């Protein structure tokens, strides 16, 4: 049973009718994100970390960096894996067990945005081509699931990457005492939209997610390129709606990117 099943028709009509009037349950404009708080570097055991609060949604991202073999087909690239844990702490509907389709989709959409931007200069993280590269684990720990895990997770992961410091390696690949930041060259930001009836809102709340007809996540990078998209939900989008979401994602993405860079001290002055 998913969370979506559990909303009554009355609530559904209520949110739908609000949307028809151009309104949202929590008083936001259609294009308005909830309050975003970034708390980087909370986890000292991780090479990088960030706790993101997006409204009441809370996602903690941790970055661990190890060494290992590259994939055979990309001997000159570091290895990166993204994992999301929808732990039962975060929602009455999350269950323990191996990752289900929701956590896999979440992890893969976040991963795709970071990989395609690309956020990291993966070729600079090679120790010996074809033999030894850095292995970067992005772990998303969902703490409070109150709508729009996609964007909260994207922002947590990207901010955490910005805060990550790794030891310089000597010629044998052993860590020295010198620390350098991860080579983060782009800051991909995702923006998730919910289509409710004929209206489209950004950053859907939990109730909006429960009633949405279709969902669209658009990830953009610093130069305004789109680097990833993912449609969800049981209805359809027109091309015009998609193009409208893309425009809004570029605009909102810029704002959020500024916040991330400011928080992590990376903003160019």
């Amino acid at each position: 049973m998913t969370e979506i099943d559990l909303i009554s028709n009355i609530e559904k009509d209520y949110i739908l009718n609000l949307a028809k009037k151009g309104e949202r349950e929590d008083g936001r404009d259609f294009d308005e994100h909830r309050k975003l708080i970034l708390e980087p570097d909370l986890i000292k055991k991780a090479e990088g970390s960030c706790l993101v609060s997006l409204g009441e949604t809370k996602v903690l991202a941790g970055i661990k960096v190890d060494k290992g073999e590259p994939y055979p087909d990309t001997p000159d690239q570091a290895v990166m894996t993204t994992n999301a844990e929808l732990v039962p702490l975060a929602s009455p509907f999350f269950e323990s067990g191996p990752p289900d389709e929701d956590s896999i989709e979440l992890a893969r959409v976040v991963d795709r945005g970071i990989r395609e931007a690309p956020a990291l200069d993966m070729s600079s993280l090679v120790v010996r081509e074809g033999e030894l590269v850095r292995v970067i684990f992005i772990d998303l720990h969902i703490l409070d699931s109150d709508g729009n895990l996609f964007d909260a997770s994207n922002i947590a992961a990207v901010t955490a990457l910005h805060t990550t410091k790794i030891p310089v390696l000597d010629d044998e690949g052993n860590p020295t005492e010198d620390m350098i930041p991860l080579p983060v060259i782009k800051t991909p930001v995702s923006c998730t939209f919910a289509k409710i009836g004929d209206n489209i809102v950004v950053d859907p709340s939990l109730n909006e997610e429960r009633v949405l007809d279709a969902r669209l996540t658009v990830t953009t990078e610093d130069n305004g390129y789109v680097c990833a998209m993912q449609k969800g939900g049981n209805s359809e989008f027109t091309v015009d709606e998609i193009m409208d979401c893309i425009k809004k994602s570029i605009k909102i993405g810029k704002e959020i990117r500024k916040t991330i860079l400011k928080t992590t001290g990376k903003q160019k002055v």
Partner: protein
Amino acid sequence: MELIKDGIRIDGRKKDELREIKIKAGVLKRADGSAYVEWGMNKVYAAVYGPRELYPRFLRRYDKAILQCRYNMASFSVEERKRPGPDRRSVEISKVTRSALEPVVLTENFPESVINVNIEIVQAEAGTRCAGITAASVALADAGIPMRDLLPACAAGKVGGEIVLDLCKEEDNFGESDLPIAMVPRTGGITLLQMDGLMTEEEIEEALNLAKKGCKIIYEKQKEALKQKYRGNNND
């Protein structure tokens, strides 16, 4: 690698040209409906079972049938042998496939039931998710499941700086981006949309429209396959 030269792509196609596609409906006996699609080197079977009673009971929906989709690759379908069973990629594709098909299936006609859509990729080479959705909607129709429309699917993308239709393996590996969609022909609505790689707003719009063009061609092939099946049955 030069992927496109004088408007001609690495495999000899024009920018808006599809790979060769064959669709056949009703290819399996046990399934309630089935289809087989050859799309370039891709070879894909789809089978539909249902609507039937859903167990365990607590998964049932009082207002509609549950659509369960399973995208699976045979171990030998790819260059390097794949371990049998679902990996993270196929779990995601199964999910977006369900999300693509839901809008066209009249699930509300069959409350408390389940409809199973099984897609088996027995040979894979760029574009299996679109081939799978294309096969699945033919199999649904073959099973007699009421639908708003068939659902063709097709990708466009950016390769060598140009927007092209239906990427082949080399274009998928070395091109700039890939954007698979599924389109409801009657409304033009998009029910599958994914994208990776880099494109501008304008390029995406071009790619979307090109992919829709591809979907229309595939739609005709889907209808033809169902007619063939019907004719074939009359001849039996």
